[in-house]
């Protein structure tokens, strides 16, 4: 997968720190928009932002550049964003990481001190097992766990991860007696699934598609409200009755509080055009990202719900740090 990301974006990398060509300048309140990420240069988030900056510049009518507030898993980014000018010139590329950091590391400035503007994408999570696993869908795996208490083994990523949260949620709802075994990260979990230490795992499709194409893994279910275009035959957890609602990873923009409503409206309009752009669409479909546009009102509510469910999970399981 990363290979694909790299290939697609090697062209982008050529113009390191390049300023996307400015179209009509008069439309947007500022000439240059900076999107900050807490990820390191060259990371998945960084490459994603570089890919989106060109179409965003085109439809916003402003230069869009990517810069870094790296370190502290988003703590520094939230602190800087909270005091950035509220004129639509500075945004923070959101992923669930900064919420985890807010809840667990308790920095001075948290998600409460910034405002959510638009959402662009969802990162779909899937359930998976080794290719020769007896389970055909995630429902088989859950049924097996319910019927054979103490025998099933499920693997999650790190202790405080969304992946573990999903499994604990299902385990509780179904009353299954199953060991949920945390790993250091998604790659560690993948090895455990491949060598049979755990029966099933949960992870981002983007990280797994390579192994699925190679025939080493098979997808058991999609943790999204609807089926995925790249995996049309794989049912969702909702269809199978494994879970009643889903928590999804998101990628969007946050800004300082107090950005004028007219400016927000301009960004909302540009965001919808970016997602509909045919060239960019080809790119993000290859990256297994699911467009999930949300305007400001909807996005605020969505993040609020996300925070609530995470906070409850941490409390229920005594997680105090990642």
């Amino acid at each position, binding site marked *: 997968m*990363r*290979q694909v990301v790299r290939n697609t974006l090697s062209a982008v990398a050529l113009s390191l720190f390049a300023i996307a060509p400015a179209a009509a300048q008069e439309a947007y309140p500022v000439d240059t928009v900076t999107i900050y990420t807490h990820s390191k240069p060259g990371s998945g988030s960084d490459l994603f932002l570089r890919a989106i900056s060109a179409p965003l510049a085109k439809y916003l009518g402003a230069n869009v550049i990517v810069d870094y507030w790296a370190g502290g898993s988003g703590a520094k980014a939230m602190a800087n964003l909270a005091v950035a000018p509220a004129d639509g010139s500075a945004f923070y590329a959101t992923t669930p990481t900064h919420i985890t950091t807010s809840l667990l590391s308790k920095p001075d400035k948290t998600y409460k001190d910034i405002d959510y503007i638009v959402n662009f994408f969802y990162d779909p999570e899937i359930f998976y097992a080794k290719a020769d696993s007896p389970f055909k869908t995630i429902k088989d795996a859950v049924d097996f766990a319910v019927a054979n208490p*103490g025998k099933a083994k499920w693997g999650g990523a790190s202790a405080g991860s969304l992946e573990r949260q999903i499994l604990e949620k299902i385990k509780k709802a179904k009353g299954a007696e199953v*060991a949920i*075994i945390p790993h250091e990260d998604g*790659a560690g979990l993948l*090895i455990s699934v491949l*060598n049979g230490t755990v029966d099933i795992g949960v992870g981002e499709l983007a990280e797994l598609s390579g192994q699925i194409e190679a025939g080493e893994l098979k997808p058991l279910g999609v943790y999204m409200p609807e089926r995925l275009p790249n995996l049309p035959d794989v049912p969702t957890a909702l269809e199978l009755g494994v879970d009643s609602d889903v928590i999804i990873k998101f990628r969007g923009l946050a800004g300082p509080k107090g950005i004028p409503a007219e400016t927000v409206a301009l960004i909302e309009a540009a965001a919808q055009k970016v997602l509909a752009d045919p060239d960019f669409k080809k790119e993000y479909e290859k990256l297994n990202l699911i467009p999930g546009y949300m305007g400001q009102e909807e996005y605020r509510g969505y993040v609020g719900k996300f925070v609530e469910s995470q906070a409850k999970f941490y409390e229920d399981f005594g*997680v*105090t740090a990642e």
Partner: protein
Amino acid sequence: MDAVNIALGVLFTTPAIFAAFAGVAYGIVGGAMPGISPSVAMALLVPFTLTMDPTTAIILLASVYVGAEYGGSIPAILINTPGTNAAAATTIDGYALHQQGRGGEALGISLMAGVVGGLVGVIALVVLTEPLAKLALAFTPPAYFALGILSLSVIASLTEGSLVKGLISGVIGLMIATIGSDPISGVTRFTFGIPEVYGGINFILIMMGVFAVSELLIQVSLVDRERAGRDTRIKLPSLKSWKRLWLPVSVGSGMGIFEGITPGGGGAVASFLSYNEAKRWSRHPEEFGKGSIEGIAAPEAANNTVAGTALIPTLSFGIPGSNSTAVLLGALLVHGMQPGPMLFTQNPDVMYGLYGGLFVANIAQLAIGMLIMTPCIWLVNRPKRYRLAIIYALVFSGVYSIDNSAFDLIIVLMAGVLGYVMKLLKFPMLPLVLGLMLGYMVEANFRRSLMVSSGDPIIFFQDPISLGLLVLSGLMIFGSAIWPALKKLYRQRTAAS
């Protein structure tokens, strides 16, 4: 063929070649300065690699390792002071040759032996890493636990100094590793409510402290040493001398392959062992110690081979074979890469790019080694107070730039004082670093295993890999505990008869 394509692609489309050249040049200078070991030279450079793409960064650091192993022999030959631990064996014959006015020839042999040894090391790296990484795929949690225990016990018993001191040092490392969040439940431990350490302590900080800062503290208390003459010119060995050199170079390379793969050995052990072996196999053993060209070739081939082969366990299992590869492993983690079987599927460009970069670095070493001689000797001759001040500034600005956190400076200083005290009391440092790096692996896999078996410890003896490795670790610890007693007994017997 794919791998070759990727390697060539990386070399010709990224700054990888420049990184290899620059790394070797910097490494030679760093290695030549007494007090700057290859690991210190690499640790100083890590912060500067943060903004590079991972492939360039890793090639740069690995090339520094290559250059530093040769650089260490320059002061060893010219002023009888090894620039690196691994060059200590080179002082014996190198300085003797220099006193006979053959210093340039000695440097040339060291350089050529290093290039040949380095290339052998890279070939071993290319041939062995991927199969070993595939083998790592079969490692279940109990097997990883046992592997961690084995590495810790090998190190505790093989490193210099007493077994007890090695174990204490390892335990200190394990204790530092427990700071931060619990690997299984995510509950924070030993953080004293300080949010900066909730995520654990960054390995690189501890290594900067125990390697660089502690060495600086020790250097301050030493008197300035002899200066190197500036008129030395490198003379490469003639075809005639190669007839005598191929044997010690082969001995050194073979020893380097073996010691690089075994954790805990490292360049210093490999060069002393190969010096002894080369003497045993030589047709002129009487020359050893009085200026034998073979006595330079063997250890210098060995330590440059280790620069390649020590990467094998680092990349395939995440277990560093030496201090320097521990720094490299820390840098991999900083760049968001996890060593192990997934490295080849997820970052093939980094892996194959590294192979290509190391080939370039080893060949570049020949040209750079000759060109850099004069500026290198000039730098080594600067007064110590200036050198140390600049290195201090590099350490602290570098540490700060990793996460822009002033708290990290406190951690580095504390680690530096810890390292200083440990060095004064002659505690080995490698067990500490390995305890730190393996602590998480040992603990997380121990608990994961028990979760898999619902709390039954028999799982560690059911898994064949785990059982084998645990038995081996038992033998290792038991053996090194009774070895001195056995040796004494044997001596008494022979003395009696």
